[in-house]
């Protein structure tokens, strides 16, 4: 079982991200489950979404308290919410930010963790460039795909094409690729 917790704010497509992730895993023949943290959130409020992926059918329905990966779509949450709570020692952390992990004040965390698994990517900027709108969700999934190898970029692209049409699909795919490339670059740096 591999579990992912995504933190963001209403309007960033966090719930969609978890759904797309589960759909991509499904395409790869895996079992997957996605669900939101169920709130009455309005635009801008903190939101949470979860995704579990496994080779066996998934019966668990509790929120994910001990994720293998955490994605933070809005770095301002770093100061409000315990986004890394319960993260496995060798877990992945992906933060949407133009700043480096050090600049975000997470150096200590970085060092305690496997440093190559703690990454920031400017997903909103990438999305703005590729899509015209700073909706970071699909770009973050591209980065996560590259970071964790949980899903392939190919399956992500397939489900993005299914979910969106025309320029929205192509823009999101371009964003996912670009974010994935940046993660790959970081890994080699």
């Amino acid at each position, binding site marked *: 079982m591999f579990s992912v917790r995504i933190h963001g704010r209403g309007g960033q497509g966090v719930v969609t991200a978890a759904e797309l992730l589960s759909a991509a895993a499904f395409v790869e023949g895996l079992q997957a489950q996605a669900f939101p943290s169920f709130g*009455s959130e*309005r*635009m*801008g*409020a903190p939101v949470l979404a979860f995704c579990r992926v496994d080779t066996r059918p998934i019966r668990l329905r509790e929120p994910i308290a001990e994720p293998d990966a955490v994605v933070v779509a809005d770095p301002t949450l770093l100061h409000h919410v315990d986004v890394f709570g319960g993260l496995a020692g060798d877990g992945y952390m992906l933060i949407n930010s133009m700043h480096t992990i050090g600049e975000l004040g997470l150096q200590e965390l970085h060092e305690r963790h496997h440093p190559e698994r703690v990454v920031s990517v400017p997903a909103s900027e990438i999305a703005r460039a590729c899509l015209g709108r700073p909706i970071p969700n699909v770009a973050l999934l591209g980065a996560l795909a590259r970071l964790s190898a949980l899903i392939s970029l190919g399956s992500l692209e397939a489900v993005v094409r299914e979910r969106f049409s025309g320029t929205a699909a192509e823009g999101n795919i371009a964003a996912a690729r670009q974010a994935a490339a940046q993660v790959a670059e970081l890994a080699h740096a």
Partner: protein
Amino acid sequence: MSRPPEQRERFYQTGTLAVGGRLLAEEQRTVQAGESRANAITKGHRACQGCGEALGARYVLDAAMRATGGQVIAANATGCLEVFSTPYPESSWRLPWIHSLFGNAPAVASGVAAALRAKGRASEVRVVGQGGDGGTVDIGMACLSGMFERGDDVLYVCYDNQAYMNTGVQRSAATPPAARTATTEPLGGHPGNELGQGKSAPLIAMAHEIPYVATATVAELRDLEAKVIRAMSFRGPRYLHVLVPCPLGWGSDPAQTIRIARLAKETGLFPVFEALHGRLAAVSQIRRKLPVEEYLRPQRRYAHLFADGGRPDLVAALQAQADRNVQRFGLLAEAEPREGDLLHVLADGERGP
């Protein structure tokens, strides 16, 4: 158990009128411009950016507080206003406030008014009931009509954002023709919400011949305040229907809430008027009549009217509705204001196309 000391309210600049108001004599200033305003719904609530309902409620309740010397009890229906103002363990309300159910706010308000009568406090303490359009014109209509008919001393305020926003933008009986909602998608030749006249809660209220009925928008906040203060000068049932754009449900720019509310009025789609005892008493005239398209285009809920060839027929139908309002209510200076009793006009069979 001690509470932190009350803070002196800071002065907020809320718009040109409010600031301009400082130059006026105290009694001429807007309620919001005054340092003594009640902040009945105070900062920190969770409404979306640009929420017309939050803005409208603030002005309405502060004005009601001003008119009564702070002696107001509010009964709120379920809906965005209730949800965004009372996220446990916080509350934005600085007046006595009760939320019971979705469909019963007018009756709860009636109950509060009855208790005040029984306790001999009805002359000092006044009651405001409030809810969204769904809570008012749909599920709450029976309780509202009962409250009117019994003559209870309640001001009921409907914040009309033209759909069930709290549950994710479904159609209500106040959703205008052709608007897209989650239950009126423009699919299979359907135009969005079906064409028709919809349900006018203000006209229904007038049919009860209650002392005071008025409509307003958040574009004219001074007018809104004045109407609340006027309403509080009457006894018995009163009804105020306020158009409050919802950026989320309308797909409009949060920064354009006021402008869109103004366009609703200036196109004639939302007539702003007052009625006394069932008779039309005053209308806010349109300064410069604009085509409905100017109002429709900035809202994504109407996007299907303009995408790929568009639906000029539907735009024309909405234009006809606006034109009819202009006629019926005498919204233009040059238009001959319709005489007296609007319901008579209705009874005369002018029920539109």
